[in-house]
């Protein structure tokens, strides 16, 4: 398993999760967990996904999701999980 974290930050609108999930399904990326919170009036969503079987290299998925975010008006990032685990776990 190759875990990555997707974050979506922006104003809440209808269909954000649906659009992200549709993209992920098309790229064979499995969703392991979803959580969300509102910080300072902004919608914050985090998805844990498995990119092991993904059709494209991680770099391209990052760019695709970035572009998808722009089209919806939110910021979407995908980062490999280790940057968070290394920083927050001993």
């Amino acid at each position, binding site marked *: 398993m190759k875990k990555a*974290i997707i*974050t979506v930050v922006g104003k809440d609108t209808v269909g954000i999760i649906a659009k992200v999930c549709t993209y992920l399904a098309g790229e064979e990326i499995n969703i392991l*967990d979803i*959580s*969300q*919170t509102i*910080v300072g009036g902004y919608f*914050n969503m*985090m998805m*844990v996904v498995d990119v092991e079987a993904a059709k494209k290299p*991680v*770099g391209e998925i*990052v*760019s695709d999701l970035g572009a998808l975010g722009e089209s919806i008006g939110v910021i979407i*990032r*995908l*980062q*490999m*999980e*280790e*940057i*968070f*685990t*290394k*920083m*927050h*776990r001993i």
Partner: protein
Amino acid sequence: MINISEVIETNKMIEREKLDVRTITIGISLLDCCDSDLDRCCDKIYKKITTIAKDLVKTGQDIELEYGVPIVNKRISVTPISLVGAGCAKTVDDYVKLAKTLDSAAKTVGVNFLGGFSAVCSKGMTASEELLIRSIPQALACTERVCSSVNVGSTKTGIDMDAVRLMGETVLETAKLTKDNDSLGCAKLVVFCNAPDDNPFMAGAFHGVSEGDAVINVGVSGPGVVKSAIEACRGENFEVLCETIKKTAFKITRVGQLVAQEASKRLGIPFGIIDLSLAPTPAVGDSVAEILEEIGLESVGAPGTTAALAMLNDQVKKGGVMASSYVGGLSGAFIPVSEDHGMIDAVCAGRLNIEKLEAMTCVCSVGLDMIAIPGDTSAATIAGIIADEAAIGMVNAKTTAVRVIPVIGKEVGDTVEFGGLLGYAPVMPVNKNSCAAFISRKGRIPAPIHSFKN
């Protein structure tokens, strides 16, 4: 599993507090490029650098994209060229040719700086080292990406005052040859005492002879993250303050460690060290001076500055060593004047002078860094500044360095614009009393008594 608030915290550090990996530097040994023929030597150097480092920039960009953390610079350090060129470079022009070779190799692989046009002398200079030093002004004037450093002393050997004197003249000559560019050549020239072999930061990076054939060293940064963390500690006692700095340094260093391991794996080059320095940039919010002010000083330069910096430096190290087993390089807080807007403001307002900066260098990494001084400063005075810093390094068994820029044609009150990460600097006054008779003495200052540990 990682939770959403941890993810938000990390991304806030990257986006708002300017957490980044300052540099991935590949150290490359050029010892096997030595040759009795200059052209063959240049050929081998060019081939070795462009082979080993060919994927460095691309790999750095890939890691940046996949982990979402900026990697600002990709750089190269090489074996001190005074060793590589000793067999074939017989004139100043020969060394300049070697510098041009390094410059073109750096351009080919796409790195912004390459360090190692260096001479590591501490007890005395070999003929080759002296020749290289004499070639530095021309080499830096006719290359773009080459950085140069010269070591003039160590705790074990004392200070080679002949090298110090020569470096005073060399710094001034470099300033003159690059005067059309605000003497920018001097920003690429560092004079060290106790220079480390594995420093990834420019301009002082070189690949020391104690290193293997090739190695990945990573420099992390993050003054903004530390400042933001300690904003929550206003009025708290020192224990709380120190704990906060340590925890933050740990987090920053772990990012560096991750990037270093990943780069090492992808490039097939062993991981060397993490340099856990707080390296400022001219951007607001990316300043070591601001941290000191957040700790409780009205301005950097106020009484208490040295103590606050000593504490900061120590806590950064303590947090960092927990995060990585291999910590090296310079590791500490940098206080380059032109690269830190808090320092620049303090100098402009007359709240910080060279003497206070010198005191600060006793307790943090490196030394008098990126300081613009009047262009009419004499070579002997520059040598005196170098000797003072070298003495601090020698006696305290730490690395110290001098990177001053005598800006030809400018005087106190003028401002110099270096551009990019090098920033801008007000020209600072230098004590006008002469040290010429001291500097003109030949020979070396002996090693201090506490260096005899055998």
